[in-house]
């Protein structure tokens, strides 16, 4: 049973790694190359304003799916990567189970926080009826 769980973690680490390489390439390309903003006159700087980001993300199921998978992959790969590092030094079963539990809790929390932030970035405030928070 434990060996099977370890096999799934190993496989998911590799699958999430592949998606992260794809996702990071897309994220980096979109943010820094094809839609590179020139907001020098708006804000005296070079970055996407909140308005430009909401224009891209609002009501786009594709971007929502892309970022949901991306956040899951990065969080899973990162948190369970840290778990693997700790497991190299800690062998006590109870402690290992506790660390795995904390990693799962952190993953779920990250996904929830990520979805809320995404909703705000897409200008769809999940805490207000009718959406939009200026």
């Amino acid at each position, binding site marked *: 049973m434990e060996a099977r769980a370890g096999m799934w973690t190993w496989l998911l680490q*590799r699958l999430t*790694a592949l998606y*992260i*390489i794809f996702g*990071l390439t897309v994220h980096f390309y979109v943010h*820094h190359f094809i839609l590179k903003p020139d907001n020098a006159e708006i*804000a*005296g*700087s*070079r*970055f*996407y*304003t*909140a*308005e430009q980001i909401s224009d891209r993300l609002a009501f786009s199921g594709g971007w929502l799916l892309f970022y949901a998978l991306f956040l899951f992959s*990065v*969080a899973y790969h*990162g*948190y369970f*990567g*840290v778990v693997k*590092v*700790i497991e190299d*030094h800690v062998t006590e079963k109870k402690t290992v189970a506790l660390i795995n539990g904390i990693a799962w809790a952190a993953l779920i929390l*990250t996904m929830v*926080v*990520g979805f*809320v*932030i995404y909703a*705000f*970035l897409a200008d769809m405030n999940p805490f207000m009826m009718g959406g939009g*928070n*200026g």
Partner: protein
Amino acid sequence: MVKFIAGWIRETRLNINFEMFAFLAHRLTGLGITFYLLAHLYSLGHRMVSAESYNNTMLLYDKWFFHIGEWILFLMCAFHAFNGIRIMLVDFFPLTEGQKKLTFWVVGITAVLGALSALFFFEPLKEMIFITQ
């Protein structure tokens, strides 16, 4: 944490070779990128306050020292990704004997990408120094 790092240093000193440094660098870059994820979520979270708060936060990050930080982050991601691909290739294909060569390729590709990307990351810095003054 200190105990872990001390353990890694002890292991590395007992077994000094190129792959050992790649192993250490993979772990350290992985930890760094994971901490960056949390910092990135914190930064994006300013949008929950207001659009203005978000824009001001992004404006704050548009400084030369943050651009250096972005470049270092890019290098960390590039090394971690290419070294991860090397690990997967060795996992799935009979390449164990050639992994030292592959590690050199990983460092080489990361170095070339790092040099090329520097031209991109420091473009705003160059403008700040040479144009706006």
